[in-house]
């Protein structure tokens, strides 16, 4: 595979990736120089006792494969120490930490993963270009270690960490692509030079290669197939796939592919990556909330772009309900909570757009929240306000990427925004084609039969034009809807439009759907809640 930069074993990679080709001495760029100084000053940096103890303990539990303690150190220990010592600075460099942990290569790779993640998240100005490259090498090391071993590696990590690794890997790729496309005036000459001589760094093929390798190694697709048909996934998992590390990495890589393909505008491949996952079953991913939320967000978005509004609405309502019910769990994890709040708002915006284009019944609690916060926006969109559609789309859409490097010389801000403008354009064209539909619908709601000529007069168009509009209405409202099977791509054409009609000669016959208020569900839920409270009171 000469055309894809596959991660290579450690001794070969130095030359392959051109690691030795750039050096970190004084470059004239203040950020890089500061780093250089810290790199050398770091050797004299005294690591506080409490940090030393933590690192040694962390290393011990990882080597002992004590999953519970690893999770504790990962979620609580590391974050508490970050808040106390490294709120806005980086943790000690790996070189400084190395002697403390006896130069344990594996631990240092994991440590660096956390180190760079922290740099991306908390450091002012974000990572420098050389830090981006270093982080990339570290990921190569990590995935080499996991993938190129003869047998499954003796490592166990909590699911949350595994998800965070895949999530962060794609996030850093995203960040790099956006950085790469920034205008030349925002980059230094050295940076531009470095970018030009290292085209394989954070190359889209490498990222795809990693994700596909993790998927293949774990046989996750076969495992999921067998799991959905009620069989034992271990029977097809193969040597590596039986281990939780590989299985979960494989699973999370599928979600990673969903995300990556969506960022590149390939919604078909995005949904295809998840074709063996049945969303209506409570399965593997439920344990990591961030993974579930990411999955549903991208699935909902893909469905919306494919004009499968009913599926989009159903997907988004499900996850929004889930977030509503589990919000209390995230209160104490602020970073996670912020992330989820933002995605929550984005999904509500997407849902409001879909409901304007395709009104249908949804869950009461989701609907009432929409009415509270988004009614204004929805009214504007219903009246055909294109600008409102644009604003909503711009807020709710993911940060689209271009897979190819730009021309570094040219100052071309339009080109850097191109991925976004393309997706926005496709969406706008689709909306413009349907712009008359809400108005027609509001007229149809008022009648049971209506002559074509009369409606044409209301709409201020000729009879023929109206017939075209009515056919367009029918075409747009007949969505492909998922009914069975695991693949999200399957479906049958259905029309669940609130208002439906047909034309008999020159008369329009209208069928309205009247929905009675649902009380039963609400009361039943309250009964169960009280029951639980009573039960817990009795036992205390």
């Amino acid at each position, binding site marked *: 595979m000469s055309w894809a930069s596959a991660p290579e074993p450690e001794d070969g990679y130095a030359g392959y990736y051109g690691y030795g080709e750039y050096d970190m001495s004084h470059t004239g760029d203040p950020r890089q120089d500061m780093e250089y100084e810290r790199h050398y000053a770091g050797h004299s940096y005294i690591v506080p006792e409490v940090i030393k103890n933590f690192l040694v303990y962390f290393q011990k539990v990882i080597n002992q494969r004590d999953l519970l303690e690893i999770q504790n150190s990962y979620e609580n220990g590391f974050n508490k120490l970050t808040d106390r010592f490294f709120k806005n600075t980086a943790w000690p460099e790996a070189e400084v930490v190395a002697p403390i942990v006896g130069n344990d290569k594996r631990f240092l790779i994991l440590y660096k993963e956390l180190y760079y993640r922290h740099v991306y998240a908390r450091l002012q100005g974000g990572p420098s270009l050389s830090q981006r490259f270093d982080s990339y090498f570290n990921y190569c090391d990590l995935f080499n270690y996991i993938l190129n071993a003869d047998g499954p590696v003796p490592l166990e990590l909590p699911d949350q960490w595994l998800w965070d690794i895949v999530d962060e890997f794609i996030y850093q790729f995203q960040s790099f692509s956006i950085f790469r496309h920034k205008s030349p005036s925002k980059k230094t000459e050295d940076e531009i030079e470095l970018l030009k001589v290292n085209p394989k760094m954070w190359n889209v093929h490498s990222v795809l290669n990693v994700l596909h390798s993790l998927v293949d190694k774990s046989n996750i697709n076969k495992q999921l197939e067998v799991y959905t048909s009620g069989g034992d996934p271990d029977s097809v998992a193969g040597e590596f796939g039986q281990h939780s590390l590989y299985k979960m990495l494989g699973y999370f890589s599928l979600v990673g592919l969903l995300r990556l393909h969506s960022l590149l*505008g390939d919604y078909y491949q995005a949904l295809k990556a998840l074709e063996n996952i049945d969303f209506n079953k409570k399965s593997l991913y439920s344990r990591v909330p961030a993974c579930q939320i990411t999955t549903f967000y991208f699935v909902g978005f893909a469905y919306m772009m*494919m004009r499968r509004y009913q599926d989009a609405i159903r997907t988004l309502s499900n996850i929004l309900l889930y977030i509503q019910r589990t919000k209390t769990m995230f209160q104490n994890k602020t970073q996670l909570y912020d992330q989820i709040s933002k995605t929550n708002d984005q999904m509500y915006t997407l849902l409001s757009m879909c409901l304007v284009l395709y009104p249908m019944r949804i869950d009461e609690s989701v609907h009432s929240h929409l009415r509270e916060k988004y009614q204004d926006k929805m009214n504007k969109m219903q009246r055909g306000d294109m600008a409102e559609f644009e604003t909503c789309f711009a807020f709710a859409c993911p940060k689209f990427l271009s897979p190819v490097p730009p021309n570094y010389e040219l100052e071309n801000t339009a080109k850097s925004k191109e991925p976004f403008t393309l997706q926005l354009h496709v969406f706008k064209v689709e909306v413009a084609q349907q712009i008359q539909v809400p108005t027609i619908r509001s007229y149809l709601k008022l009648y049971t039969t209506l002559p074509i000529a009369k409606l044409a007069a209301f709409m201020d168009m000729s009879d023929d034009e109206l017939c075209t509009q009515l056919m367009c209405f029918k075409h747009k409202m007949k969505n492909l809807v998922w009914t069975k099977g695991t693949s999200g791509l399957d479906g049958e054409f259905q029309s669940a439009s609130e208002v439906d009609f047909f034309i008999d000669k020159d008369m329009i016959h209208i069928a309205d*759907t009247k929905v009675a208020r649902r009380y039963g569900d609400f009361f039943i839920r309250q009964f169960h809640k009280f029951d639980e409270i009573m039960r817990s009171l009795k036992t205390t």
Partner: protein
Amino acid sequence: MAEAMRATVASLLKGIERYNPENLVNLQRYVDMQANENTYDLEANLAVLKLYQFNPNLYQAEVTAVILLKALTNLPHSDFILCKCMIEPGRLLEEPVAKVLVLAELLETANFNEFWITLMKDLDPLVEGIVGFEDSIRKFVCHVVASTYSTIRKDKLRQLLGNVTEAQASQWVSKYGWTEQLDGYVFIANQDETIRTKNITEKISFDSVAAIMASGR
């Protein structure tokens, strides 16, 4: 021939092979085959567009136009949108892709009369090269007509199908099991069955209250 290729192509699209630009030659040939033999393979065509996205220097406007036209033959599926999302905006303004976009807009807004007029006006050699293109579009027209009308004037139907002859129109009518009435109307179906005012009242199943009743003992 295209059918035989389908299996070979499927293996080219597995996993990481999908992104190998060396496959482009075969995949482009496969697109041509689809056009000549009236077959359709969405995944293979999307793979071609993806390879163009990753390797913009290998982009070919002609192949893209054929892919887009084939996507139109699969209406009402939204294949066309999926394809458009992977083409660089600049390319969308070039011919012959721009012309295909115009045709697509007319079809998506059910503006069938305009569509046939535009098609006849510049009968592109590209469109001519796609076997069965017009018939696929007519299939789509009938699909939309069938869901919209219960009875439609025969001459209107003829117009929507592209000003076909009486005989051809009758062929389409019988193909879908519609009946020609004596008053010049074509009867499609009794839509009353499917499109009826619905009153959705709440149904509370026994299962959901069973748990409550059990705990209320």
